[in-house]
């Protein structure tokens, strides 16, 4: 298990957004977290990445506790994410957005920037090449000089994934990556995420597109009102009474 979460809890005032959730993510799998609106999925992601630290519980990443680390330290550990309400650097070019994703891997600082010494030039070249590679992979190469804000919605989502990948993560957290995408784009995303798994990445994904989830997820965890109500593969989850109840209401006898 690459990521092990035990008894994670987060309260906002009287509302328990994440309630004693346990989750284990196996290496090189696609693990989905689903649930009705307001089930606490995004808060759960924010807890893992420390953007909103959890109140209690443990998050163990490769045998090391990380729940008290800062977001930037967690990024340095190899956990990258995208955001439900896209958080691109709007007034930055597509290319610079992705290059910024490589921030962790380089050390050039004020002196390097001013003197443009050998290390600075090597780092700039490397990060630019990696960024271009990723931009080509998501099909935005000809738009690399556009401001991120000028891209259509679907392409903004792709750019966010490219930016997250630029930090060369081991675990990628995707928060509703298919939202706002059309069928063709969702199909493309399906292939793309599978390819990431083949490349050795572990993916934790929140998604409302049931077809996408059932198609790619190796394992599915269902949250409702902050509580884990079911876990298993696609078939097991689909036939779970509590899941059906959470989504559709109680079956009449």
């Amino acid at each position, binding site marked *: 298990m690459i990521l092990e979460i035990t008894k994670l809890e987060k309260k906002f005032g009287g509302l328990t957004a994440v309630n004693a959730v346990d989750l284990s993510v196996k290496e090189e799998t696609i693990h989905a977290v689903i649930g009705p609106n307001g089930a606490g999925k995004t808060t759960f992601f924010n807890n893992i990445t420390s953007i909103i630290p959890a109140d209690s519980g443990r998050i163990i990443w490769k045998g090391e506790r990380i729940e008290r680390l800062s977001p930037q330290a967690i*990024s340095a550990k190899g956990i990258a994410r995208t*955001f439900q309400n896209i958080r*691109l*650097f709007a007034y930055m070019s597509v290319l*610079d957005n992705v290059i*910024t*994703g490589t921030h962790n891997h380089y050390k050039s600082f*004020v002196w390097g*920037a001013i003197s443009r010494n050998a290390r600075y030039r090597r780092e700039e070249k490397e990060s630019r090449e990696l960024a271009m590679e990723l931009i080509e992979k998501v099909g935005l190469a000809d738009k690399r000089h556009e401001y991120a804000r000028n891209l259509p919605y679907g392409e903004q989502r792709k750019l966010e994934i490219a930016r997250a990948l630029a930090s060369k993560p081991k675990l990628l957290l995707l928060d509703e990556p298919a939202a706002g995408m059309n069928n063709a784009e969702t199909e493309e995303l399906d292939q793309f995420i599978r390819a990431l798994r083949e490349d050795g990445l572990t993916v934790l994904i929140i998604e409302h597109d049931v077809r996408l989830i059932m198609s790619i997820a190796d394992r599915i965890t269902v949250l409702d009102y902050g509580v884990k109500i079911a876990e298993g593969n696609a078939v097991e989850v689909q036939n779970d009474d509590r899941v059906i109840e959470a989504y559709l209401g109680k079956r009449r006898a």
Partner: protein
Amino acid sequence: MNTFMAMPLKRNQTPFWIGAVVLVLAVPGLLGGSDYLIQIATMMALYVVLASSLNLIIGFTGMYSLGHGAFYGIGAYTSAILAINLDWTFWVTMPIAGILTALVGAFLGLATLRLRQTFLVFGTLAFGEIVRILIMNWPSLTRGPMGIPGIPPPSILGFELVSSTQYYYLILVFAILMVFLIFRLYHSRVGRAWVAIREDEIAASSMGISVFGYKVLAFTIACLIAGLAGAFYAHFITFISADQFGMNESFLILTMVALGGTGSIIGPIIGALILIIIPEAFRFLAEYRMVLYGALLILVIVVKPEGLAGVKGLFAPASGARRFSFLRSGFSAECEKVEGAK
């Protein structure tokens, strides 16, 4: 219209613009114009530096500072006091002035940069007033309201720079150096981190950028440069007093950045040039030129909120949904609170 202005990071253009501005600045010297014109050109070069350094804080990193005039003043007073009381040369007092100002800036940054935007505005405004009042009420060191006269001019290899043309070139070199330095910082890993913070602090922190650290860094470098500019100013004008570095000064520099354009290299330069020329060119209008000045500013803010050649305005939304972000409540406000508490 202006499609090239809207394109991000066209590298080949910025050096061209810098070259053009250099030429403009060099004209009075080349023509051997009157002392009056050369003095104006010298002030332009100084304000180019001040506006560009404030742009590091406001335009690149998206923070606010209404106390930049105070840092300028700290630099000027430090260099003047050291030069007069200890008889040190300008080439020693100037860097010391810069470093001391940077230290004060770093200290203020560490204390205030965790504040949300609105509070940061007031914090820096208050700091500016504190510095001015401190200068006024510390006569044993600063001669208080009397100011410091007779600041010695700098010398190069034993040769004193006394003529305004000589001084003009000295400050021109300084200005070009500082703009070049800011240009290189902007187009680097450090500059990208600053812009990322301006655009979205939460996304920046999940990219591994230390938000608070880079904010303090931008603030410190901006203060260092303002302090150096203050030292150059003090030895050029030879008389300094507290009222030269008050709130008006801070607002003038801020206006230059807002008018010329936030977040670009060329913007603050244009702003500085325009706002030095206007009061001089329209002297015949006497006080009415301030009306003109105000009207121009309002026009620019309405028509081009990002300034004449800026990237992103002071109040521009990051994306459509984030307009009036200070009114946001609920989840994202919670995020920012948590972010701020770190």
